[in-house]
């Protein structure tokens, strides 16, 4: 039986737990993995070790609930990044790492694997009572891994391969930019890795409306960017929206859609099976494998650019004949110009028109009316007219408002 460690080999193992603890936080121990309560205990202990300051507990009739409670506005750096800094390694990995870079301490030093091996044994490990034994193949494997990471350079001279360290990069002028972009750019965790390399300091930035839920999907996002950039298809496992069953998919990634109002990240991609463009939630994707270049990639991007004009959220439909008309009118008093400003700045693909001295009309043709509904509800108190081409949704909207009146004891329909 292996003993507990706060480090993990595979991030996928912790991804779902992190999400449950941070986003939901109302499940008791029994509701997690019924097959293995030990797994739950280990993952909870790990997350507590990384993020103990944010861990909260509450006792309910169902048992003790554990959750993460973070006011992201009060934090200058995303605490969830810590989970990406918990990768396990072997005793040999860490020992070799620091010795290698001590030998190759400037880019001008070039050594063969044999020379490195001799130096490791004679000048470093011999200082210890029971020196570790590395064989040359272990060293070569590590050197190859580091060449792939770009931190070691290999160079062939005659029959010999010489290894040296890559040039260092001066980050001293970039610290402010790292503080900002590590929170405000995609894959910000990489910025956090860079900040670990500079002196401790107090960041001059804080962040409002700062969604950090996507942190756990950083690796998926980075893989998708690589695929988009190289115009390649991918294979992945996707959790089905309805049946929640994992499905293998083969798609061509086109663009990442990120919400700054709920933190969701979606991949817009062309399904090679159904020949349609769909959106896939990043938190439902895993096991990404980048495949070959898709030769009609640029054509797909052109098609998608046309669809984007009618997307309110992330839903798109390959058949533009299925556009739905959404229209509503609001009442705006003279001293409420901020409402007009709201309509203008939040209208996305829609249009706003003044219809008379006190009324403004919004209209748009979109793929999915239901995506616009929550936004229209934010104007409750001033909606005077609705006109949806989907009459069922229009009626549902009105019924919802009736239900809201009833919920707060204001039954009896409109009073005008």
């Amino acid at each position: 039986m292996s003993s507990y460690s706060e480090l993990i080999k595979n991030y996928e193992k912790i991804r779902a737990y992190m999400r449950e603890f941070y986003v939901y936080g109302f499940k008791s121990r029994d509701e997690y993995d019924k097959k293995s309560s030990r797994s739950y205990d280990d993952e909870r202990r790990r997350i507590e070790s990384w993020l103990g300051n944010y861990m909260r507990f509450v006792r309910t009739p169902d048992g003790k609930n554990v959750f993460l409670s973070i006011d992201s506005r009060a934090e200058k750096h995303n605490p969830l990044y810590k989970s990406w800094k918990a990768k396990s390694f072997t005793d040999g990995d860490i020992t070799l790492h620091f010795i290698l870079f001590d030998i190759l301490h400037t880019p001008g030093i070039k050594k063969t694997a044999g020379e490195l091996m001799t130096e490791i044994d004679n000048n470093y490990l011999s200082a210890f009572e029971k020196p570790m034994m590395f064989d040359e193949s272990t060293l070569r494997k590590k050197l190859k891994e580091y060449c792939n990471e770009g931190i070691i350079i290999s160079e062939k001279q005659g029959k010999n391969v010489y290894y040296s360290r890559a040039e260092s990069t001066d980050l001293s002028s970039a610290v402010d930019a790292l503080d900002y972009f590590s929170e405000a750019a995609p894959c910000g965790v990489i910025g956090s890795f860079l900040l670990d390399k500079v002196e401790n300091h107090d960041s001059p930035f804080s962040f409002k409306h700062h969604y950090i839920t996507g942190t756990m999907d950083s690796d998926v996002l980075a893989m998708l960017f690589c695929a988009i950039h190289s115009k390649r298809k991918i294979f992945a496992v996707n959790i089905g929206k309805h049946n929640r069953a994992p499905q293998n998919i083969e798609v061509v990634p086109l663009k990442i859609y990120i919400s700054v109002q709920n933190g969701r990240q979606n991949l817009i991609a062309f399904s090679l099976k159904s020949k349609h463009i769909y959106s896939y939630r990043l938190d439902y994707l895993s096991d990404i494998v980048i495949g070959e270049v898709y030769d009609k990639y640029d054509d797909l991007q052109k098609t998608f650019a046309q669809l984007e004009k009618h997307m309110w959220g992330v839903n798109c439909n390959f058949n533009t004949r299925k556009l739905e008309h959404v229209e509503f009118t609001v009442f705006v008093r003279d001293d409420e110009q901020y409402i007009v400003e709201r309509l203008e700045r939040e209208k996305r693909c829609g249009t706003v028109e003044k219809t008379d001295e006190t009324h403004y009309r919004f209209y748009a043709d979109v793929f999915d009316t239901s995506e616009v509904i929550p936004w229209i509800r934010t104007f409750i108190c001033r909606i005077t007219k609705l006109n949806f081409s989907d009459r069922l949704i229009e009626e549902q909207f009105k019924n919802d408002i009736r239900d809201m009146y009833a919920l707060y004891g204001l039954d009896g329909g409109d009073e005008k």
Partner: protein
Amino acid sequence: MIFSELYSAYYNAVSHILDAAVKENATEQSVREKVVESAFSESALTIISSLKNEKWQLLKKDFTTPLKHTPTMPLTNLQKQWLKAILSDPRIRLFDMSIPGLDDVEPLFTPDDYKLYDKYSNGDPFESEIYIKKFRLILNAIKTKRPIVIVFTSRNGRQNRLSLISERLEYSEKDDKFRLIAAGCRFGQFNLAKIESCDYCNVNKKLSPIPRSDEICTVSFELENERNALERAMLHFAHLEKQAERIDKNKYRITLKYYQSDETEILIRILSFGPFIKVTEPEAFVQLIKERLQSQKNCGLL
């Protein structure tokens, strides 16, 4: 791709420990402190024992090391690709910086590869020279703690001139705007784009370095999990401190903490969930909802 021990808290902690050992000033106490600074709450046990027991052959029992140089590691390809990506973001011009050695590096992403589809369209003018100049001056004032004087026009059209201490710059991704959070004056925050001019100043009066506090309020509501409302609400309010509890098979009680100055925003965001959220506390918040609904009744929609 991202999950690698090269970026791990343990490697960072050991790097700091070895740095001290190379400089011949590592002690058990300083080693412990460096682990606490760089790693996790249970890390000290593993890291210190692994070094002391020579499982990791880097530090000897007397806290000296056979290493001769301060540990450093070049940037990985991934780190360089991310840096190259942020260099193509228009907001990079706000920063007076240069990163040499990235000419041959492919960016991890470009602005064309992703879209923040629900960002407000009236964001700050990040590429305006005047805006950049203001941003850089305020950023420097925050770091050097120098007081500044700003000129801005208030909502009633009056021009104001205020001396203040810049605390930090707060960025909202939704608004795509920076706000200056200030201390030492009667206002707590200013939209950076609305500051007409600013400069360093010498003030005669003593400015209080304590920023104005924004009262933290609580709102509780019951949520009926229809049309996926639970997941939508938990994601939508994920950025706030919150607590959720199941109170019935399909019903949840959720409590959120928010800043008083954001009350109207929280109110309309709750309204966006329609009849699936019923605010229960505090009564004053319930009244705000009722007022909106009462006004809606007067609109003659139904």
